C-alpha cells in the first residue's frame, strides 16, 4: 500500500488504515513503518464490528500452517513483539464511493490473505465511471 501511494492518489481515493491500538500505539506504528496515510485507532473494534469483520476460530490460530507463516515473517525481518490488538481478529479491505455505498468488499477468511493492489485500484477506478 505504502509503495503504491502515488497510484492511489492518482486514482482519486483517500486511503485510511484501521488498527486496534490506542492512538499512541497507532502513532508509533505509523512512525515505525513510515506510513503516509491517516490511521484510525480502534481498540474497542467498533469499526471492525460495523464492517462485520470476522474473528479467526481458535483452532486456526493454533494451526501449524499459521505458525510457519509467523516464522517466515520473522525471517523476513518483521521481528517479534507483543501483539497490539486481538490476535484472532481478521483484516479486510473496503472501497466506499462518494455517496457512502460500499463498492468493494473484501472481508478476510484467513489471516494471510489479502486482495491485490490491482483489484483495489480497479474498484477505485469504478468509482469514477458514470452510474448506469
Amino acid at each position: 500500500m505504502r509503495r503504491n501511494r502515488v497510484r492511489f492518489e492518482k486514482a482519486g481515493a483517500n486511503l485510511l488504515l484501521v488498527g486496534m491500538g490506542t492512538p499512541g500505539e497507532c502513532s508509533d506504528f505509523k512512525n515505525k513503518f513510515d506510513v503516509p496515510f491517516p490511521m484510525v485507532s480502534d481498540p474497542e473494534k467498533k469499526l471492525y464490528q460495523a464492517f462485520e469483520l470476522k474473528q479467526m476460530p481458535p483452532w486456526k490460530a493454533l494451526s501449524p500452517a499459521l505458525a510457519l507463516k509467523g516464522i517466515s515473517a520473522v525471517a523476513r525481518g518483521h521481528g517479534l513483539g507483543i501483539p497490539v490488538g486481538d490476535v484472532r481478529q481478521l483484516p479486510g479491505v473496503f472501497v466506499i464511493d462518494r455517496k457512502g455505498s460500499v463498492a468493494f468488499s473484501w472481508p478476510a477468511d484467513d489471516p494471510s490473505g489479502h486482495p491485490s493492489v490491482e483489484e483495489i485500484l480497479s474498484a477505485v477506478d469504478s468509482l469514477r465511471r458514470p452510474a448506469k
Partner: protein
Amino acid sequence: MSAETLRSPDLSVTLSDGSAVPLKEFWKNRGLVLVFLRHFG
C-alpha cells in the same frame, strides 16, 4: 459486510493523533479505501 447495496456506517472515528473525525469526511469528496489491519507489534 458485503458490497452492492450496503452503506458505510455513520460513525465518528478516532485518529492516531487523538482527533475525532466522522468517517464520511474521508469518502464524501474522493471515495475511500479502508484497510483494516490485523494485530501489530
